[in-house]
């Protein structure tokens, strides 16, 4: 068949398909698979029969656009969010229990070792942090004079909320992403954070700021610290793909690792979001008595680990 004849015969169908792909007449999509198959066949014919480059390009454009229309995945944020919280996050975390456990050890191990060391010998804090940082921390958490224990106006609550989102979730994302480059780097990054937090906490306990500080942190720490540990574990999963790709090429291994790690980092993001809300609007509140803060804080720790350990058991199988 000559080209002119071929074009004449199918012109109307191509114009129609083009219009529908442009979004005109979108309601008549009943026969999209058929249209996609036919235009694919026309493209194959045009190529083998040596029709002009123009025609082949035009058919290729129609074929690739109907291919994309046919095989696209709808984005449904609500369903995704429910599935994440209900099943996928806890299941993904448990599937990586070795890395998650390692991340816990490398975060809380150094944290408590430093905390105990500083508590035992107050001078140790100066071998971990410099003088300036220590005195900054003292001012920041001074129960006598500073912002964090006074009832704040709503606008400064919002300021702190913005800051916690921008800073904390940013840290979580960076910890995760650095895994693709630095191998197990994220896990070691956790260790250094553990040392710093342990030193600050130990020092503040020593100088008698411990009570109010604990009341302040107990509410959001369950979400915040666990989320940072999970970000580290998810990042280390990416890093392991480079270090130990197993039966795959490194690129393929990275893709597979990323798919396993994504629900974990998504979960960590949601947890940091919750932590930011708590930290900005609950932890700093002076209306709430300390006893209630401790109770709620303890409840939240149980909730976080209960969720991670028991959530999505059915999806596991």
């Amino acid at each position, binding site marked *: *068949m000559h080209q002119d004849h071929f074009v004449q015969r199918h012109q109307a169908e191509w114009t129609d398909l083009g219009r529908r792909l442009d979004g005109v007449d979108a309601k008549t999509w009943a026969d999209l698979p058929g249209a996609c198959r036919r235009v694919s066949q026309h493209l194959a014919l045009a190529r083998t029969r040596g029709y002009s480059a123009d025609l082949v390009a035009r058919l*290729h454009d129609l074929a690739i656009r109907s291919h*994309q229309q046919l095989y696209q995945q709808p984005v449904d944020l609500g369903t995704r969010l429910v599935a994440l919280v209900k099943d996928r996050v806890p299941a993904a975390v448990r599937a990586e229990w070795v890395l998650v456990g390692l991340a816990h050890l490398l975060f809380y191990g150094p944290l408590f070792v430093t905390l105990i060391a500083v508590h035992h010998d107050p001078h140790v804090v100066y071998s971990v942090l410099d003088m300036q940082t220590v005195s900054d921390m003292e001012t920041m958490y001074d129960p006598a004079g500073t912002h964090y224990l006074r009832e704040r106006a709503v606008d400064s609550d919002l*300021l702190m909320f913005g800051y916690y989102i921008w800073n904390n979730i940013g840290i979580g994302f960076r910890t995760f992403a650095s895994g693709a480059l630095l191998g197990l780097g994220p896990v070691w990054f956790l260790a250094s954070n553990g040392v710093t937090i342990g030193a600050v906490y130990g020092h503040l306990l020593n100088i008698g700021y411990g009570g109010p500080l604990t009341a302040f942190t107990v509410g959001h720490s369950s979400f915040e610290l666990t989320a940072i540990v999970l970000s580290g574990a998810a990042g280390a999963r990416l890093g392991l793909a480079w270090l130990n790709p197993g039966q795959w090429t490194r690129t393929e291994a990275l893709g597979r690792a990323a798919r396993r790690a994504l629900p974990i980092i998504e979960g960590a993001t949601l947890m940091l979001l919750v932590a930011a809300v708590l930290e900005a609007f609950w932890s700093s509140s002076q209306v709430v008595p300390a006893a209630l803060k401790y109770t709620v804080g303890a409840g939240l720790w149980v909730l976080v680990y209960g969720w991670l350990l028991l959530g999505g058991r059915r999806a596991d199988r």
Partner: protein
Amino acid sequence: MGFDPYQRLDTVRRIETPEGVELELPVAGPLPRALAWSVDLLLRMVAYSVAGAILSVLGDTGTGLFLLFIFFLEWFYPVVFELAFHGATPGKSALGLTVVMADGTPVTLSASLLRNLLRFADLLPSGYLVGLLCMFFDPSFRRLGDMAAGTLVIHRGHARPSAALPQAPPLAPQIPLLAEEQRAIIAFAARSSTWTDGRQQELAGLLGDLLGDPSGSNSTLAVRKLCGMARWLQGER
């Protein structure tokens, strides 16, 4: 397909669809992608200044909202646009680029999240050095984020309007032509209007034997004959 050295150099990735046809994905290199990124950066800067100016009147609340705005734009600006506007941020759109999955389908939410979260690893230590090095060593110009997400950045195909062949009386070739040769003649006719007369005549003159004028003396006639042959090959009689 056997070993083809050109395949290794080619920047067109070929995929076979379930409909049994090969589609071509022309992957985009570092330069257009960097330009697209610059356009996006410019847009984000404008958004920051506008938002900053508006929110500054709100005091602490404004600062808090501004930090939220920065956070959202820095991490999720590409995700939102890639999902809502056929895989292209405004910058990519301006440069005619699109993000697609490696199988040519539209980019998914998971893939978009991954490639944009890992952007942080690609831009280390500064100026996207890691991403650039990855692209140099990857035949599909993928940065780390693209490798992890399984995505490609491609040039969007432009369906060129079918150029009408120049007027000439249809002319049957005297000898049977291979498909390749037929394509070359039709392509010559389709593109001839974009060249100078001298260039058209120079190229047509090379085919003196085919056109029954071995000496190539009348090259204006040769161009006409070749266009006529193209019309004949397309089915005109």
